[in-house]
């Protein structure tokens, strides 16, 4: 896993309080990791802070899985 993926994973584990081995690329924040809509907003805010990027609302809507987040951040940093 790349550095970005590791940092994303760490944020997700910390924020959602889920087991690290559940946080795989294909895992959906809401369906697999038990996030509610407010959690997803908080995750996006945490990603913005960690990586010093801006994630606009329409982009945030497309980030459904851990892999989506990693890919978006890779393209944005």
């Amino acid at each position: 896993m790349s550095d970005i993926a590791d940092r994303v994973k760490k944020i997700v584990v910390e924020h959602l309080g889920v087991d690290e081995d559940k946080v795989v690329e294909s895992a959906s924040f809401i369906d697999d990791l038990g996030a509610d809509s407010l959690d997803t907003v908080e995750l996006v805010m945490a990603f913005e802070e960690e990586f010093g990027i801006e994630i606009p609302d329409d982009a945030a809507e497309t980030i459904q899985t851990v892999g989506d987040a990693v890919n978006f951040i890779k393209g944005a940093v």
Partner: protein
Amino acid sequence: MFDLTGKNALVTGASGGIGGAIAKALHAAGASVALSGTREAPLQELAAELGERAHVVPANLSDADAVAALPKAAAEAMGSVDVLVNNAGITRDNLFMRMSDDEWQQVLDVNLTSVFRLSRGVLRGMMKARWGRIVNITSVVGTTGNPGQGNYAAAKAGLVGMSKSLAYEVASRGITVNCVAPGFIATAMTDKLNDEQKGKILTQIPAGAMGAPDDIAAAVTYLASPAAGYVTGATLHVNGGMSMV
């Protein structure tokens, strides 16, 4: 009775009678306070009176940029904003048929839109802290209506619906959003009324007297405190029985 030690509170309209009393009460309960208002001199005076744990962060809430900058300025002064008291308000009274778009818009901008923006501005920090208090000062006329105050009543009633919606969204994060609805409170604003007007008002108040700014400050202090953690989306009416809802 209600302990706010270590909490940081931003109070808008702190240069006014009610806002000043709220700031003093929160400060007396142990909070640090950031005093906001349009007129800097009375804010500085109040800060000097309070001494430590008091900061002045002037802002004109009819200016969108100033509203956007205020939560940041308050957080920089105090370290965080744990309690937001949206007390600032203006009136531009006129009979409905004579009310201009401008009178309508000014009141909506300051009394409703700025509260939306300030609340949005402090939420990120509160979400992270898993603790926060937003207290919006509404008015009895938001519930009862009042001739000549179509704009003011609309804004105050709007605050109640907005507060309830936000209360739903953030309740699971330890953040509460409530309203305090004053009735007639003796301030510089009501001093302008003549005896006949005052007499007329008093006949509508079962308690037989106008309220004091401290009556509102006590309600705000309760809602801002850890003791009120299970109270959210509520409106606490402080009106001497003038309107029992």
